[in-house]
C-alpha cells in the first residue's frame, strides 16, 4: 500500500520561544499542539491520533495524552532521535490510509537551554544499551562522533572546511530574514573557518544552535483537508531507515538516506530534479553535505563542490535549503530538528516563507531528518510533499 495522496499536512506550528525558563516541558508540547491545530482550523476535540517521541515526558505519550485531554484511537511513539517527527508524518499517513485515525497530532518540545545541558560536548550514557560499555569509556559526544564522519569524508573525497562553511553561510543568509532566529547575523566562510575548534574538523560555526522550544504538525485524511481553508500540502512519498555499525563494518561516508531517499522518491514518482526546496537536517554542516549526496542531489564525494559558492542560498543557488535558518542559525528545539524541517517545507509549499527566501514555483519539496549520530547509529527519514 502506498501513502501517496492518502494524507495532507493541514497545520504546522513552530513555537516562538528559544529559551523557556518560565514554561514546563508539557506546557511547551501543549502550546505547540494548540498552535498547529489553530493553523489547521481544527480543535483538540478533532484529534484522534497522537504521535510523539522520546522528548515527551512520561511513558510513551500517555502523560501527554492525559495532560492535553486527548481522546485517542491511535498512538505511535516511534523514537529515532531528531528524525522521529519526519517518520511520524509518514506513520500518520499510513494510519490514516488504514482507517486507524482521521486527525493525527505530532508534538515536540524541549528545554535544553533552560536546563543548562552540555548538548554537544558531554558524553551521553544510554544506560542499558548494549553498545555503551564498548563506547562510553572513550568519550563519544555528539560533536566528536559527527566530526569523525567529517574527517573521513575529507580523507576520502578531499572535502574542505571552507566547503563545509558554505552550508553555514547559506543558513545565515536565510536567518537574517527570520526575526525569531537565534542567530541572525550573516557570516562568511572566513568567519566559520576562523571560529574556535570544538572537535577536529568541526568548529563552533559548523554546529547547530541549542534552543528551547517545540513544534507540532497536524496530518489529516483528504476528505478533511478539502473542507479546511489553508493551502493544501499533500504527502506523496516517504522513506525511513536505520544505519549502524554493521557488526564492525563501519563506513562513515554515507547515511541511512541512501535507503530512505530512493524509497521516498519512488513512492512520490519524482526525482531530485523535481524538488524545488529542501529542508535538510543540519545538526552540523557535515550532516547536510553527506545527506545531499545520499539523496542524489549530487554524486557521492562531490558534496563539497555542490554546496560551495552559495548553491544552497535561495534566489542565488540551484537548491534553496533551510530557508528559516535551520538548526544552524534559527532553532533546534529539544536538540531535535526534524519537526521544524517539515514546518519550513510546508511554509515554502504554501508560499508563506519570508518573501526574501521564498523558492520560486515551489510545487514539490523534500524534508529530511537524521536522528542519533552519523558516527554510530542513526535514523534517517525522507518526506516528499506537494502543493495541491
Amino acid at each position: 500500500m502506498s501513502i501517496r495522496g492518502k494524507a495532507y499536512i493541514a497545520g504546522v506550528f513552530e513555537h516562538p520561544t528559544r529559551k523557556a525558563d518560565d514554561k514546563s516541558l508539557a506546557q511547551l508540547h501543549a502550546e505547540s499542539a494548540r498552535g498547529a491545530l489553530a493553523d489547521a482550523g481544527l480543535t483538540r476535540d478533532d484529534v484522534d491520533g497522537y504521535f510523539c517521541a522520546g522528548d515527551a515526558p512520561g511513558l510513551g505519550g500517555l502523560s501527554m495524552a492525559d495532560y492535553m485531554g486527548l481522546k485517542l484511537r491511535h498512538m505511535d511513539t516511534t523514537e529515532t532521535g531528531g528524525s522521529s517527527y519526519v517518520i511520524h508524518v509518514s506513520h500518520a499517513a499510513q494510519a490514516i490510509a488504514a482507517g486507524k485515525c482521521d486527525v493525527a497530532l505530532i508534538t515536540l518540545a524541549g528545554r535544553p537551554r533552560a536546563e543548562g545541558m552540555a548538548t554537544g560536548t558531554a558524553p551521553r550514557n544510554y544506560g542499558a544499551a548494549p553498545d555503551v560499555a564498548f563506547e562510553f569509556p572513550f568519550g563519544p559526544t555528539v560533536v566528536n562522533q559527527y566530526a569523525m564522519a567529517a574527517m573521513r569524508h575529507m580523507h576520502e573525497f578531499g572535502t574542505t572546511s571552507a566547503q563545509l562553511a558554505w552550508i553555514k553561510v547559506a543558513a545565515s543568509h536565510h536567518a537574517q530574514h527570520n526575526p525569531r532566529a537565534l542567530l541572525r547575523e550573516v557570516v562568511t566562510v572566513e568567519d566559520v573557518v576562523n571560529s574556535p575548534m570544538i572537535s577536529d574538523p568541526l568548529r563552533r560555526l559548523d554546529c547547530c544552535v541549542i534552543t528551547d522550544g517545540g513544534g507540532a504538525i497536524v496530518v489529516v485524511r483528504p476528505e478533511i483537508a478539502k473542507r479546511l481553508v489553508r493551502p493544501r500540502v499533500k504527502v506523496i512519498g516517504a522513506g525511513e531507515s536505520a544505519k549502524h555499525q554493521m557488526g564492525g563494518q563501519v563506513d562513515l561516508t554515507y547515511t541511512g538516506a541512501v535507503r530512505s531517499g530512493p524509497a521516498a522518491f519512488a513512492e512520490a514518482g519524482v526525482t531530485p530534479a523535481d524538488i524545488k526546496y529542501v529542508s535538510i537536517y543540519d545538526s552540523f554542516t557535515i550532516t547536510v553535505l553527506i545527506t545531499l549526496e545520499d539523496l542524489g542531489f549530487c554524486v557521492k564525494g562531490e558534496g563539497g563542490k555542490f554546496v560551495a559558492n552559495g548553491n544552497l542560498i535561495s534566489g542565488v543557488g540551484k537548491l534553496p535549503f533551510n530557508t528559516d535558518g535551520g538548526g544552524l542559525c534559527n532553532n533546534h528545539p529539544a536538540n531535535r530538528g526534524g519537526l521544524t524541517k517539515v514546518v519550513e517545507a510546508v511554509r515554502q509549499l504554501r508560499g508563506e516563507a519570508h518573501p526574501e527566501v521564498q523558492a520560486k514555483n515551489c510545487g514539490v519539496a523534500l524534508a529530511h531528518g537524521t536522528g542519533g549520530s552519523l558516527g554510530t547509529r542513526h535514523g534517517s527519514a525522507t518526506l516528499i510533499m506537494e502543493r495541491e
Partner: protein
Amino acid sequence: MAGGERKIPAPEANPETKAFWEAAADGRLLIGKCASCGKPHYYPRAICPLCGGEATEMVQASGRGVVYSYSVMRRVPVPYALAYVTLDEGVTMMTNIVDCDLDAIRIGQRVRLVFKPSEGGPPVPMFTPA
C-alpha cells in the same frame, strides 16, 4: 600528558560480555567470531549481527590495526582523540588514540593495542602509534 589524565568511566559487564572484560583484565582484546558465517564482528555478541547465527565465540585479536577516522575533542579540560580503528582482523572498533601527539594522528596510521585503567572497572582497549 598536559593537563593531567582524563578519567575513563568504567565499562559495565553483563552476562553476555563478562568474558570480554575478564580478558581485558588480562590484557587481551577479544572480538566476536561466528562459526556459521566465518566472519568476525565487534562488539562481540551471543548472536552474530552479520548472519544471525548462534554459533559465536570470542577470539583474541592481534591488537594491530589502522586509524579509520578520529577527532580530537578540544572543548574539554583534557583534550582527547576519539577514534575508530580497523583491526587487522577486519572489524572496526571505537577507541581512543593515546600516548602520542594528538596533532600528529592521521587516518591510515598504524596503531597497536594498549590497555588503560578505568575508574573502578576493568581496563579498556585503546591504541597508540605502532
